[in-house]
């Protein structure tokens, strides 16, 4: 079990995908290192070389991996948007749908939120920072209101996006009119240079 060197990234990737398959099948709490090894067709020692912290590290890593996958798909969905309004609307609508349709996330949330949430919370700062950094160029292009700091505005927008996609509250995010309303009022009204125009620039 002595680590002999850093595992190649492909092995790590394969183990994470296999672990995710196990979680989808049995849940987070019941997934073991043995399950992951069998699914990935590697030895237990290989899993421990890739994840020296064992099961705890593997579980944290798979939540992190699935989160990155989720936001990579979100990025794919919105990266060709041409305006700040468009990127926010498409992003919120897509993320909302994806969370609802994410079978593994939904099931784990229902049955073992206490296992998932601490790991997800650790991720949330990184996610927020990622969203904020992604939004900065759109904010610069759109122009922020006088006296508004771009970094501060990006952080605020990222916080709000995460809040709405994880808990829509009174908003129906399946309705494009409501999403447009939400983006223009609670997200952008104080942030952008002038009242947003009716059409994207």
């Amino acid at each position, binding site marked *: 079990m002595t680590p002999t060197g850093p595992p190649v990234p492909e092995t790590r990737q394969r183990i994470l995908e296999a672990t995710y398959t196990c979680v989808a099948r049995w849940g987070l709490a019941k997934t073991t290192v043995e399950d992951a090894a069998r699914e990935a067709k590697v030895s237990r020692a290989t899993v421990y070389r890739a994840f020296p912290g064992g099961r705890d590290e593997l579980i944290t890593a798979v939540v992190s991996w699935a989160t990155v996958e989720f936001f990579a798909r979100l990025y794919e*969905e919105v990266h060709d948007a041409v305006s700040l309004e468009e990127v926010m609307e498409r992003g919120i*609508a897509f993320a909302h749908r994806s969370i609802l349709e994410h079978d593994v996330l939904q099931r784990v949330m229902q049955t073992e*939120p206490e296992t998932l949430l601490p790991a997800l919370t650790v991720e949330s700062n990184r996610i*927020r920072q990622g969203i904020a950094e992604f939004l900065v160029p759109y904010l610069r292009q759109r122009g922020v209101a006088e006296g508004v700091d771009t970094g501060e505005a990006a952080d605020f927008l990222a916080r709000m996006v995460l*809040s*709405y996609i994880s*808990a829509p509250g009174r908003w129906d995010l399946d309705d494009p009119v409501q999403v447009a309303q939400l983006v223009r009022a609670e997200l952008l009204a104080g942030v952008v240079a002038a009242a947003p125009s009716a059409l994207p620039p």
Partner: protein
Amino acid sequence: MAVKGAALRVVDAVTVGGRPAASPRPPSADGAPDRSSPHRLAVVDATLACLARHGTLKTTVDDIAREAGVSRATVYRAFPGGREEILGAVVDTEMARLFSALGASMGAADTLSDVLVNGITEAYTRITTHPALTYLVEHEPEVVLGHLAFDESNRLLATATRFVGPFLARWMDPEESARVAEWSARIVLSYCISPSARTDLADRRQARTLVETFVLPGIRALRAPDASDPIDLNRYAADHRAGGPTA
């Protein structure tokens, strides 16, 4: 998990019952025979002290009795359900205390800006400096986090909205009050869960900057009748639908 179940029932009681959540006493203390013990509040406060030192896992009924200076039998007379019922009452009481403080603080405001600053600052400060909550976030995060994500977060937002909305009614109609109340609750939760290095909402001046920069313009943007440049949302959404991904 036992603690979570107990806590959820309490949130339900505050939400569904329509009872005055602002009462400094537990909202459920309105006449049920087993809830009339004079020791209930002492037990709740003793439990809070225990939780702030040891969390839920290591706090026993014996610890609580010792801290409260009463016998185990007295604790069980006040809370026949034992530990789980006590923990439920603790959440109940602390929610009521938070809303009571929020009510006093928001009720004293004379302007829309002040009512939002007062509410946000009061809630943020109370939540982030709450000794028992601080211990749990640090050592037993799973006890707290369950209430802050997805469906549970929706329930928490609904509870906060129902309570805070009426304090905004002087400045806007009920529909708008509810929208702004929920929005404010989101802001408080976001900054409590992950505090910002840039904005400290415990500082009134910084809270006011946030309210006046981001929140007030958002309120005005949806107030179409008197807005100088109302947003034509229907037109925009129609255009968007025609060419957008939701076509």
